[in-house]
């Protein structure tokens, strides 16, 4: 495993909000290298002029009637939250600290 792979894994983990341990970084770094190497063949293909395929249907601009109707009640929407006060989800302080 190269230093570059370790750096890529560390930087990507930060972007993905994953707090990896040193052992995980080492393991993923090595596997990352092998996976990307196996995927290199994509770069050898000529794709000039090809339109990217962003979805698997031909549907576009799907709209529904703009009608008000009941949605999930608050109590049920909150029911799976690890911390709530019956009205809102509670999260750690976000302003004023270094968060």
């Amino acid at each position, binding site marked *: 495993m190269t230093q570059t792979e370790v750096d890529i*894994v560390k930087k990507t*983990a930060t972007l*993905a909000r994953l707090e990896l341990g040193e052992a995980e970084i080492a393991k993923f770094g090595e596997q990352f290298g092998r996976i990307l190497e196996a995927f290199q063949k994509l770069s050898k293909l000529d794709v000039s002029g090809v339109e990217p395929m962003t979805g698997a249907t031909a549907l576009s601009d799907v709209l529904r009637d703009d009608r008000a109707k009941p949605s999930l009640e608050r109590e049920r929407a909150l029911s*799976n939250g690890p911390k709530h006060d019956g009205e809102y989800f509670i999260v750690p302080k976000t302003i004023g600290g270094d968060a």
Partner: protein
Amino acid sequence: MSGFADYAKLDATALRDAVVSKRTTAAAVVEAALARIAALDPRLCAFSSVLAESARERAKELDFALARGEPAGALCGVPFALKSNMCLEGVEAHCGSKILAGYRPPYTAPFVQRLLDEGAIVVGTTHMDEFAMGSSGENSAYAVAKNPWDPARTPGGSSSGSCAAVAARMVTFSLGSDTGGSVRQPAALCGIVGFKPTYGRVTRYGLVAFGSSLDQVSPFTRSCRDMELVMSVISGADEHDSTCLPHPPIDPDRSDSVRGLRLGVPKEYFAGGLDADVRARVEAAIQQLVALGATTVPIELPHTEYAIPTYYVVATAEASSNLARYDGIRYGVRKPGDGSLQGMIAATREAGFGPEVKRRILLGTYVLSSGYYDAWYVRALKVRRLIRNDFDAAFERVDLIVCPTSPTAAFELGEKSDDPVAMYLSDVMTVPTSLAGLPAVSVPCGKVSQGGKALPVGLQIIGPSLADARVLRAARVFETATKHQSELYALDLSALEGAAR
């Protein structure tokens, strides 16, 4: 109350007839299903939860309704199971992940509701690879399901438990989800029918998202007529999912012939890496279809070799985005970390996700990150188009494509679990269809002998977009003309009964 003695011998169509004609009752069917689960599941580990009480209650309601002469639903009294990434109100859907331990959906998915409305009885939820990421079921944070043909082997994945539950005839059908082959591959490895419909045929509302442009709810059944029946119930428009097609539900083909159908045989699927015995079974199956009146046409799908890297770029990119929602705030488990918001999120995700999910989130985040986006993600989307174009060109000359579902029969548990690249390659026959969004079925086509065990092989039949009914018709004609379906019923599972996991 004693169970219905013939329970494990009947498919959904016949079981419903038995209930509706009062040869048995829904209650007796449910007792038989629960008894079979109690006997076999300690060894097979297909079920994450068994909903005995609600199933018994529902059966009683159905029996009362029948006694009152009310019309019976299309699946009246038929027990089924759900993969644990599907929403049934109040029933834990942990997705095989610790991060969703205890998550109880506040609503029921429409595709589940449609089954319940037709009288099907949900008897449990099943084990799976965490967030449907895997090809063997081994990435579950809870339990690893076993293959009923040989419990030392995988039932396939990621819908491992849903497949094992049907193959061991604990339930009559089940729902899985197929993103890159997660229903077709296990169906092949367990000798049952697995069908991924055209992308958009079934609503994804209430299916926990993995790769949103690929995911499709896909059933497991023991017969093709059952597959046609279940699909006719769960498919069709749904306003909750804007990628769900506006078309009516799939209407089974009335034809029972394959005469005149042109079958494309793609040379890329019969190349290196394909097990010789599997190849022989699939080639024999194609000859049987020819004997039934179909013709074969050699075709080329030249971008097949790019499908695995394309799939793993597209699917991981979508997964990294979809799984960003697991932040310890709205559902699931929370770990405090250093007490800050970002620290809490990172600690929650570190503790909650298993290694394969982290690996894919990392890969997906990487291919979407600044500087790599065009080189990896956009390039993969362009290759995806080329793969779709290959199929479109082929379907100008043929009506269906026939090939193996999996390059090998069921492999041993532990055999590939430490090698992600080898595991990814086991999807080589199923991911191209997923990328192209096409309908494809796996139907049993015989067995091979490996390590002293008889293991099933699947024939994959692929159709053009929206030709779901044609795909299922061809599979049904093949099934009817061959005896492979009866092999499943002949599988003796008595040695597995009562043994501990």
